[in-house]
């Protein structure tokens, strides 16, 4: 009996992760998301490859600009890709969720963008390629009145162009 319990726990964890991934994929809008792309990950070095196999965005905790371990993993992959394909210019967009006031959220979006820039630069990305822009809470991607949406809107998006 004892040996079974951890396995069930493990399976439960897998199901939970799968659900989170599915929810995240569904809720992104066609123009900005990573979940709506066609089959395949795009040609090597393409913007589609960046979206699909690297991931263009990281998420933050409420009122925080600290990088989570997951965010750091994503940014590590971004840095490798960006250092390989140096023809792209990079725009970092900082965003906040709706549960804050307008002006503070503009500053918070900028602070999040700045944290991402600093991390990418620390991984060798040339700062001269990077610009930043804060949208505050003005451009949410997920629209609802609970944390399932707010957690997707607290984000920094790396746009390769």
């Amino acid at each position: 009996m004892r040996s079974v319990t951890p396995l069930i726990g493990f399976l439960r964890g897998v199901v939970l992760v799968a659900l989170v991934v599915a929810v995240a994929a569904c809720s992104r809008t066609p123009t900005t998301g990573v979940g709506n792309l066609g089959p395949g990950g795009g040609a090597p070095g393409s913007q589609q490859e960046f979206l699909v196999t690297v991931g263009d965005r990281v998420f933050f905790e409420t009122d925080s600009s600290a990088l989570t371990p997951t965010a750091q993993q994503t940014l590590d992959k971004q840095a490798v890709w960006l250092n390989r394909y140096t023809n792209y210019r990079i725009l970092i967009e900082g965003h906040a969720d709706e549960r804050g006031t307008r002006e503070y959220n503009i500053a918070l979006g900028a602070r999040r963008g700045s944290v991402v820039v600093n991390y990418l630069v620390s991984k060798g990305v040339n700062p001269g390629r990077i610009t930043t822009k804060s949208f505050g809470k003005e451009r949410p991607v997920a629209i609802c009145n609970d944390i399932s949406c707010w957690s997707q809107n607290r984000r920094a998006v790396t746009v390769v162009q």
Partner: protein
Amino acid sequence: MTLITRRSALKLGLAGGVFAAATPASALVQIVVSGANFAPLPIAIPDFASSDPSFGREIADIVRNNLRRSGLFAPLDPASLPTRVGDVQNTPDFLSWRTAAVDALVMGQVERGGQIQSSVRVWDTQAAQQVVGKSYGTDPQSYRRIAHIVSDAIYESLAGETGYFDTRVVYVAESGPKANRTKRLAIMDQDGANVQYITSGKSLALTPRFSPTRQMLTYLNFEDGNPQVYLLDLSTGKQQRLGSFGQMTFSPRFSPDGSTIAFSVETGGTTNIYALPIGSSQPAQLTSGAAIDTSPSYSPDGGRIVFESDRGGSQQLYIMGAGGGGAQRISYGEGTYSTPVWSPKGDLIAFTRQSGGQFHIGIMRPDGSSERLLASSFHAEGPTWAPNGRVIMFFRDPGGDAGPSLYSVDIWGRNEQQIPTESFASDPAWSPLRT
């Protein structure tokens, strides 16, 4: 308790029969406004006399609506009055008005010619005395203004405070889906009439604020990529960027003399407050450090600035000298505090507070005492003061794909009203009294 005591000294209100007058010389009774004890003053406003009777009725309707929406007055049904049309030439028959239980009576007249001319007399029927008698003129294009000017005269004569009806509100008109919403500046009279759109909507426009001395706004425009502070001349429509400082500039507000703009500058994720004399290119840095310092608002004497900062770990309110330095925290309640705005009277600071999963609009004294929450909901934000410092406008957003609306509430937390707008609306900013 001290706040209520102080409010009692405001002498808001007159003639109405709640308390006897403290000053027998005036022969007038006074209403003391404090909390739930207050009842609006019944007031009789017959249609204004005019060679065009429907015009006289329209002007009287605007006046009645203004006074009713203030929450201090209860205009009586015009059809129930002993006299249906005003008369400014003769002394009223006080006995018949007293018999009809009318204590406060407004008699008005209005004529439209090369100018619009209006005369008004306010009478205390119990004392058989005129409270005020005045005549005004405006240009014929802005006939609603004459009604607002008359409303201010009535309010001032009976409430003992300057009015706020001949004012405008600039706000952000919102349309389109939430994820890609168009936000442009619009301006309207304080009662929602005469809406005009100021910016095209091609770029996001946010947080407009009026100059206290000129027909000018400062606001936030996303046209240049990152948001930047702009100036906009209301008489010409001409606009220009304030300057190039840091990566991003935002959160602008005029000094009380209109000469200077305080605003936030963001560089490398750090946000500090600066002040720039208009026309200069050398802003003075007022705060420093790695925190987010934003939403500066001057005291009416120009000597101090209240602002929000997360330097202590979460957003709280601080006051510093207008030249920077000596910041003292004033907010200590649960949750976070933001968007402080100093009352034009100087006695109070309005703010947004987040606690318990809700947003609240509140007021406190500049020393942080006597905090009072006036309105609470899922989301509420962005208070702005009427020029008499007794009414606050703010916006609420129900969330989801719906959008925000404007509301007003008085500093006692009473008389909350939605302001009618033809689109979603946010970030209201109240103008000074027009001149």
